[in-house]
């Protein structure tokens, strides 16, 4: 049983606690665990909570996988972008309990959720790909463009400017800020609220609201996955 994501079902709420003991990096194991947990949640729950660990929501892709190279790189990248798409279109409300840093893919996953609660201190919101010589996946750009406030979108993505919790609230990374000790209660409050939503109505509304988004995201996803295949080849060729 995978311990990277702890799954708890209680009162129709599925809580997925990500905990790799460090930065909650998105490697194949973590992404697999998340997908399996989301599969269960889709069958069993009415609301999903994606919970970070103390100090970190997610640090993004596992950079050590890039360093090692090989076919895992392509697999990890593809799983990561597919997870973004999955969360964006998820038929149940997804609450993100952003307990700490949200960096790179971690920030995109956060943005992909329906309701985001962040800690009011001790967290960095950083779309840092440009800072580490990487390029944002196209699907990540789509998510950012739609979820980040227009005024902050450009600097956050193009320049990779890190944001504090207060700035993150303005920028649309999070919907609400709470002190760390109050996160659990805030999550519970929102769960009790959202669990009352009619699931069919929620899913239909979300599809309609996301309608204009579906095609651009699908195109972006395809282009990203095609590009990742070429990474795999290039890396293997080294």
């Amino acid at each position: 049983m995978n311990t990277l994501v702890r799954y708890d079902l209680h009162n129709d709420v599925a809580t997925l606690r990500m905990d790799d003991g460090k930065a909650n990096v998105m490697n194949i194991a973590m992404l697999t665990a998340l997908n399996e947990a989301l599969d269960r949640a889709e069958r069993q729950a009415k609301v999903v909570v994606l919970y970070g660990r103390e100090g970190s929501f997610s640090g993004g892709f596992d950079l050590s996988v890039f360093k090692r190279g090989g076919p895992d790189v392509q697999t990890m990248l593809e799983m990561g972008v597919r997870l973004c798409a999955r969360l964006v279109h998820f038929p149940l409300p997804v609450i993100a309990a952003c307990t700490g840093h949200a960096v790179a893919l971690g920030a995109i996953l956060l943005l992909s959720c329906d309701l985001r609660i962040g800690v009011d201190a001790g967290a960095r919101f950083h779309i840092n790909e440009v800072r580490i010589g990487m390029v944002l996946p196209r699907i990540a750009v789509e998510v950012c463009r739609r979820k980040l406030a227009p005024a902050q979108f450009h600097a956050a993505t193009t320049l990779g400017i890190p944001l504090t919790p207060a700035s993150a609230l303005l920028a649309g990374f999070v919907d609400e800020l709470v002190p760390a000790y109050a996160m659990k209660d805030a999550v519970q409050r929102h769960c009790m609220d959202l669990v009352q939503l009619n699931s069919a109505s929620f899913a239909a509304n979300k599809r309609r609201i996301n309608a204009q988004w579906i095609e651009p995201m699908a195109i972006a996803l395809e282009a990203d996955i095609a590009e990742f295949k070429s990474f795999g080849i290039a890396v293997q060729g080294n």
Partner: protein
Amino acid sequence: MSDTVQVSIDEAVMTVAINRPEAKNAVNREVAEAISTAMKELDSNPTIRLAILTGTGGMFCSGMDLKAYLRGESPFIDGRGFGGLCSAPPQKPLIAAVEGFALAGGFELAIACDLIVAGDSARFGMPEVKVGLIAGAGGLLRTPRLIPQRVAMEMALTGEMISAARAYDLGLVNRVVASGGALNAALTLARVIAANGPLAIALSKKVISESQDWLSNEMFTRQEPLLQAIAKSKDAMEGATAFAEKRRPKWQGC
């Protein structure tokens, strides 16, 4: 003497940096004595206008060194209080440049200063209650005079930290800059202050700091001697003259 506190002077601005990053810049006897000595130097040296208090290694100060305290080292200096500063701040202005944590005694050092510049991931707090202690080095006394009482009460009773952004909104912090830039920003602020009349800045600090306790019907009377001192000073004359002559004043400090 080891370098647990680095003191440097550059163009009338003294920088006092706690340098025990391996101990999260905790205050032991040596640190308290070094700060005390620096404060004496600050006030007695006419070429120094003000000082900046900071910590090295991206951390301001995590408070009293508990291990040292248990060994019998007191970080309280006679007549000056915790860290050689908290009970008797200097006459001249002090700016705290805060990165990382300013907690417990570290928080109390920061608020014993006149101005605070913080990096945006800095955090401030009085966690003493979590270990059955109280913030007795000025935390409980100064905080409710600096920020709304109920917010001070929450900080003291919960022992929880607040962010630099919150501290700025509360007026506890004067400026928030990108993480890592607090010392530079403090230096910039210091140079603006250092360009002003030395007697004027010292007496302005004195009036602001002390007049909180002056009654409304006597506050002008109590201010009068200080006003007189300024009015009679050479620098007041020089300031006005320089203004009229459209040039920079040359201060003498008297």
